């Protein structure tokens, strides 16, 4: 019967190939060098300092609902020509803008 632990993944066959087990009753302590950066790239590019959108969730949903109510009217008032085109583009515009909810 094949072992349940057969064919365990191997990414680099060399890894652990020369490992010599130390005495497990005598635990080893890794003492690596401690990193103290002095370079300037510990700060990210200015556009990658992320903050949270300040708008409160409730306010945001009010605005969203208000926008939805307003939106169908807007094409009518702005471009009369687009009213014809609206039938053509309806599928596209609806999926990209108003049908989010």
């Amino acid at each position, binding site marked *: 019967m094949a*072992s*349940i*632990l*057969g064919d*365990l*993944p*191997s*990414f*680099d*066959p*060399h*890894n*652990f*190939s*020369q*490992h*010599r*087990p*130390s005495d*497990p009753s005598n*635990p*080893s*302590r*890794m*003492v*690596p*060098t*401690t*990193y*103290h*950066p*002095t*370079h*300037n*790239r*510990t*700060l*990210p590019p200015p*556009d*990658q*300092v*992320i*903050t*949270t*959108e300040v708008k409160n*969730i409730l306010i*945001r949903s009010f605005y*969203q609902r208000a926008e939805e109510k307003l939106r169908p009217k807007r094409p009518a008032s702005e471009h009369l020509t687009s009213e014809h085109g609206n039938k053509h583009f309806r599928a596209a515009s609806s999926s990209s803008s108003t049908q*989010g*909810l």
Partner: protein
Amino acid sequence: MSVWNYVVTAQKPTCVSHDCVGNFTSPQELNLIVAKCTRIEIHLLTPQGVQTILDVPLYGRIATLELFRPHGEAQDLLFITIERYKFCVLQWDSESSELVTRAMGDVSDRIGLPTDNDQIGIIDPDCRLIGLHLYDGLFKVIPFDNKGQLKEAFNIRLEELQVLDIKFLYGCTRPTIAVLYQDIKDARHVKTYEVSLKEDFVKGPWSQNNLDYGADLLIPVPQPLCGVLIIGEETIVYCSANAFKAIQIRPCITKAYGRVDIDGSRYLLGDHAGLLHLLVITHEKEKVTGLKIELLGETSIASSISYLDNAVAFVGSSYGDSQLIKLNTQPDAKGSYVEILESYVNLGPIVGLCVLDLERQGQGQVVTCSGAYKDGSLRIVRSGIGINEQASVELQEDEMEETEIEGFLSEVQTLFCHDAVYNQLVQVTSNSVRLVSSTTRELRNKWDAPAGFTVNVATSNASQIGDGTLTEVKHVLLEYEVSCIDMNPIGDNPNYSQLAAVGMWTDITVRIFVLPDLTLITKEQLGGEIIPRSVLLCAFEGISYLLCALGDGHLLNFHATHVFAASDRPAVIYSNNKKLVYSNVNLKEVSHLCPFNSAAFPDSLAIAREGELTIGTINDIQKLHIRTIPVGEHARRICHQKQSRTFAICSVRNHPSAEESEMHFVRLLDDQTFDFLSTYPLDAFEYGCSILSCSFTDDKNAYYCVGTAYVLPKENGPTKGRILVFIVEEGRLQLIAEKETEGAVYSLNAFNGKLLAAINQKIQLYKWMVRDGGTRELQSECGHHGHILALFVQTRGDFIAGGDLMKSISFLIYKHEEGAIEERTRDYNANWISALEILDDDTYLGADSCYNLFTVKKNSEGPTEEERASMEVVGEYHLGEFVNRFRHGSLVMRMPDSETGQIPTLIFGTVNGVIGVMASLPQEQYAFLEKLQTSLRKVIKGVGGLSHEQWRSFTNEKRTAEARNFLDGDLIESFLDLSRSKMEEISKGMDVQVEELCKRVEELIRLH
């Protein structure tokens, strides 16, 4: 004054909370990244094993850790969130070998209830979103743009308030999360949501109600299978939009998992008892057909598991030592598939500790109660210089080859033997001095002692000996016998000594004579009655010293490179900044040693111990040496008793399956061998809460007092406990007296020959009564009410400091005449105390449950009574570690003649296995170091763009305030790791020479 404090880490955190594997340092290299609370360690997998590259301190407590690869990147990035609502994305720049911050941010919200469960930080497998769950009812999304850059974060309302786990699902056209949650009836369910970039959730493809009551963990399954595994305590369920499979498992709480195969068909699961299982998803092509689970073997109790490569996995533990394990295809004789390749020391969680100075060298040895459950242990931590053993031979007579040197006199005892210039050997016996050729082994010259004189002690150096000539130059008669002698060359000429040092019997002096005419130039009275055993003339950093070792183990230096002092407790003495430093060595019972320099072992030492010869080199960094005594159960309190040379511990043994799942004990151990000598089992449901060794008025016996609590399942808090008084007789614990109490005895202190106990809301004083019949008992004398729970008590003279569960620190006084305890003043802040210590008569130190340290001061000079009744907060600092115990003491040998010897220190232990040192500095030194710290903040940058100032600011639920009157020793001591140019930058800014700065920082390092 103990207001100006310096806090430094002697032992970095050792608890592993998270780990992950990926190609971080290069596309070809496989890395193991391990999080240890406030640090990450970057390791590289190599043919030899796991090689540590870097230890990275972070200015924050790590909440989550994940590797991910945005589109178009050749190697992984590291995403870290920290508990104080910050995150960062780090990249390894292999050209400069530096960590670069790709992005960072503040993810806090002004309103919102922080989650009770762990913070969650996850990344969509297709790298479209980062998801965060930090506050109940909110899910925060940080979207990626198509170039892998992060955009502004937004919150989405999450209906589920009690979230247990959230994971992103694989293979979804839109980012989809599975949410495991508990409803108000405590039933657990999973729901899925699509995260729409319209800043809202859309109902997901499936949900599953009424899961296992213990379901606590989700494992997302990668493509092609997709779906999620829901890990419960009695069942494991596989769930996806089109399949549902479940299996029953032996009841266990799964603490960690690690995915084995890239396709997600096998997982390693680690449970609360340290058992490792393999979970297999059986499938036919992309159709899941079932689940299988197999027990593999036992490891430490895992907190995280990562499959590494070629059947090797890493088990990170916060309850025991972390381990590197090999998964064998066939079980061993005991049926285990697991082979432990390596263990990595973990001291955490340190719940109790004691500091003792068994050898009375002024150097503390810390014994900690470490680990939890089956991985519980005692750890003996000592600071010292290590000998790196290069080779060692066992000395057996039949194996030693004896060489006859013809020129030596072998019928009489040799007093002294040494090699000398011109290939000669010197032998001194009680009546002659012989000079022998080391090449021909023949006698070249000899000198016989005149009749009536015998030689007692002798010395020589290698150079002041003629080529084949021996002449008596001078002879003087002294009034007493000589006990020891030395003429090691010091001064300008390394080959010629102008001085001889002589130690004397009877008048107990050391004398210095000028060579060669032996005129006495000085005589020093040593005082006392202990004869000098060994003298040595030597020079450290150009300063000449005379070292004199006494028969009782004291070492005196008279205004005097490394000297190795051989004894039953070997030590190295060296000079640093023209000050002598004494350091222990990690060897026992050295009888003799000498320098040994050969091609195979350059600059080594040959060390003779009983039956063994070791060759090694001195490891010049003083570091902590840790010895582990496995207990096999959770040791929680420890105390040492000098008189009986024992330790007593309170411990708890868990039987996960048995009806009565816990058993509590008081156990007695030998303080040298750590053998268990005796055990006293406590009653059912009775916890050992505190332990103390003390003596009482009019009774010189040493007793162990143990405070307990009956923790009954149906009670909210304990209402009954006991104080047990034991005496150690013939290595056994004998119960002498017991006293019932009206609550849990959280703390016990020796107080004016009486016993002071903290019992629930009360601090109670007991006196010790010896009855006529010889029976002894505790009798209640007085007490003080007024705590929520009096958890910690410390005393100093008649002063009592109480640390409350919620009400910070109060100061009480015992009035002898009235036999009463009165509260004088208190800190009115609502700090939840986790440890307490008295620094001096006026200043008290507290650690709280928000990982802060603070000092408060009695305001006894205050003009109004109101002011006098309230303590003034004088210092605040965010340590970032949960302190369980402070103890006065030092980890290093403290010489009263050195400046650092005057600085009071205390040692603390934390949940993450940190051993820290806090030193109370003189104001001048503090002010100087504060300036240095400010300069260092500008030069040493926070990894991930995190700020040191913010990190060290005191913070709790109510307020955040800048750190004051505490210094971060870890930052200050990293000055010595800086490049010369950076040191000069700081030196210029402070207008202090680099050498002076180095010297002052090195002095601090010697505190730990």
